[in-house]
């Protein structure tokens, strides 16, 4: 009933919001929040196409499900590591403002 394009556009909007957050947030954790949003948007997309596939083909596409599961796993892993890094950086430099973590400045 709901056109697929709605889902896709919603996912796209979510993705872009997350992108905006990644690019603009000062706080490092805020950046990670943006990343999470992006990953969720990806998941929405994946599941939308999974549903579509079932609808169009008779054969259920298990690869979509597996892909989604993997995205989940990877998101979790990346969040864990990212936060560990942020905490470490915070310990070293007492700041997690992304702008201040600019040792790579050329």
């Amino acid at each position, binding site marked *: 009933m709901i056109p697929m394009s709605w889902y896709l556009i919603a996912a796209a909007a979510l993705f872009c919001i997350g*992108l905006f957050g*990644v*690019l*603009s*947030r000062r706080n490092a954790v805020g*950046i990670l929040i943006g990343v999470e949003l992006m990953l969720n948007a990806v998941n929405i997309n994946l599941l939308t196409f999974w549903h579509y596939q079932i609808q169009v083909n008779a054969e259920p596409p298990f690869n979509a499900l597996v892909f989604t599961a993997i995205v989940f796993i990877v998101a979790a892993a990346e969040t864990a590591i990212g936060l560990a890094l942020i905490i470490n950086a915070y310990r070293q430099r007492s700041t997690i403002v*992304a*702008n201040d*973590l*600019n*040792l*790579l*400045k*050329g």
Partner: protein
Amino acid sequence: MMMTGTLLWLLPLFPLIAFVLILLFTYKKHALSHTIAIIGAGLAWLVSMVVFYQAVTHSGGPLMTSALNWLPTGETFLRIGVQLDALSAVTLFFVAWTILMIFIYSVGYHNFGAKRGVDDQPGLPPHGALIKDKNGHKHHVPSVEPMYGRFFALISLFAAAMYLLVVSNNLLTLYVGWEIMGLCSYLLIGFWYGKPSARAAAVKAFLTTRVGDVFMLLGLAALYTLSGTLEYQATLANPLMMAQLAATTSPVFGLSWAGLIGLLLFIGVVGKSAQFPLHIWLPDAMEGPTPVSAMIHAATMVSAGVYLAIRFFPLVSAGWEPGMALNPTMTVMAAIGAGTALFAATIAVAQNDIKRVLAYSTISQLGYMIAAIGIGAYTAAVFHLVTHAFFKALLFLGSGSVIHGMEHGVLHTGEHIDPQDMWQMGGLRRKMPATFWTFLAGGLALSGFPLITAGFWSKDEILTGAFGGGQLVIFGVLALAALLTAFYTMRQITLTFLGQPRTRAAEHAHESKPVMTIPLIILSIFAIGAGWAGIPEAFPGLGGLIPNWFGGFVGGMVHFEHHAETHSLVPLLTSLAVSLGGLLLGWLVYRRAGTVDPLERALGPVHTLLKNKYWVDEIYAVLFIRPARWLADVLVSDWIDRRGLDGILHGIARAGLWLGRLVRQGFDVPVVNGAGDGLANGTRSMGALLRRIQTGRVQDYMLLALLLAIVAGVLVIVL
């Protein structure tokens, strides 16, 4: 008996070897130096006597030559060689004697054996040493010359050059000897090179004779060009050649070639024998030691000039016979000779330095000889040359002895007087008898004292020649000069030897050592006796008693001297009058002279003129020296060299620098540096610009990546 040719070659060699040996080995050793020098001169003397004897006894005309090929000139060779004829034989005679005497004299003059003075420097005359005698008194005595060896080396070279000149058979080696003598006179006049006056005098002598030598060289070149050879036999003694040269006209003044070449060679003689206008160097040459003055001004150098003039007499007299009017060159010679004789004699009257009087006297006597050649009195000129050499050498050495005595007196008394000033002398007759008598002999010879002095005979012959040849003006001038000669000679003798000593130094003078007085005595023998070899046959009384050997011997050199001249009494009486009269006048005026010259008051301003030598030196300074100096200092050195050439050089340098700067600033810095720096700066600014991308902030990198991804995506979709 060795071949004469070989002996002649050896003559210049002995003193030359002595020169080399002294220079290289015995410079510092006094005894060895003078021994070698005297041996050289002695050997030369010995050989000269042998050769002279051979020449005299040689029958059929005295002529021996020996030549060898020297310079290859195209097809033929330029030959040089030696020659012995009557003229060179008699010249060798007096040259050998005078040189040997001077060498021996020099040993004593330079105080051989004396102590070296404590202040004596090489380059300055020695001024005495302090010795203690047995009572403990300190005496100032003359000290030995510090440059003893150098002196003997140089006079040996001088002697070698003179011998070379006399024995050569061609004008080229004569010129070589001539120039070497010029060099030696420079070195010897400037012997005491520490004295600025000596240095100046040496340069003056060299440059003045150089002026004459340039013209002489022109004459030699002309002769060589026209005749193809310079040998005497082929040119000067060749009547055909002489006639031809006399016939062709040269482009200069319309003279014949013979006359022109003769004139050019004569200018060389004017320089070397110190005739007017090139006489200025000779009085200044008194700066050298007295043996040098004797050698240069009596025995060798000035005699060389007259010798040359006598040699080229056939050239100037080509086409002339006795009784004819003189041709232009001969007129010039006679005029200059006679004029100089009178001119110098007048100056000598007002001179106070004993050597200067003799210097001007030499100039005057040389004028006599040249005048004699000019009027064609060949034998007379040669005769006077020979006798003059003897008595002038005697007089110079005698004056050296006087100066030595005076210096001893000066050292003894400590007076500060000039030992050469005649007005400080007086009464030396008693203190220095040997010197006095020999000087008197020489002085009388110079004055032409009748009969017993050689000078009388030679001078008389010149006057006779002048009168007999109809040259009455010349005769008159020469007679007047003879009067003045006698006058100033007696003046000199009176002031120096007669009367009372005028200063304490003169009182304390004493006679010189035998090594100095014996040469004086020997020379005085010649001064007295040499004249008797040439008594003309036509002389009243004595003529014919002693055969006129000289006239016959030397007269064979020219073709027209064989007839005996008639001897009028006028010249004889004139010469008696002038010589005796002059001597008497001189004695009368000066025998009671105190410290002031009576002539000074008598002549008034004329005396000042004479004393200042007619200001010839000053005139030359203004006319020639100052312009030459200006030319050198201002024109060439400053304007041309410093401003012009250096200006051009600096200009080139500046142009180069400007160009360099131009290239540098116009091209190098902006373009090359600019390119390089620009590249670097551009890269840096580019980098600085791009560095802003590297903010170190991750979010900026992400944004950038996103933007570029968008762009790429758009491109992909569009294309």
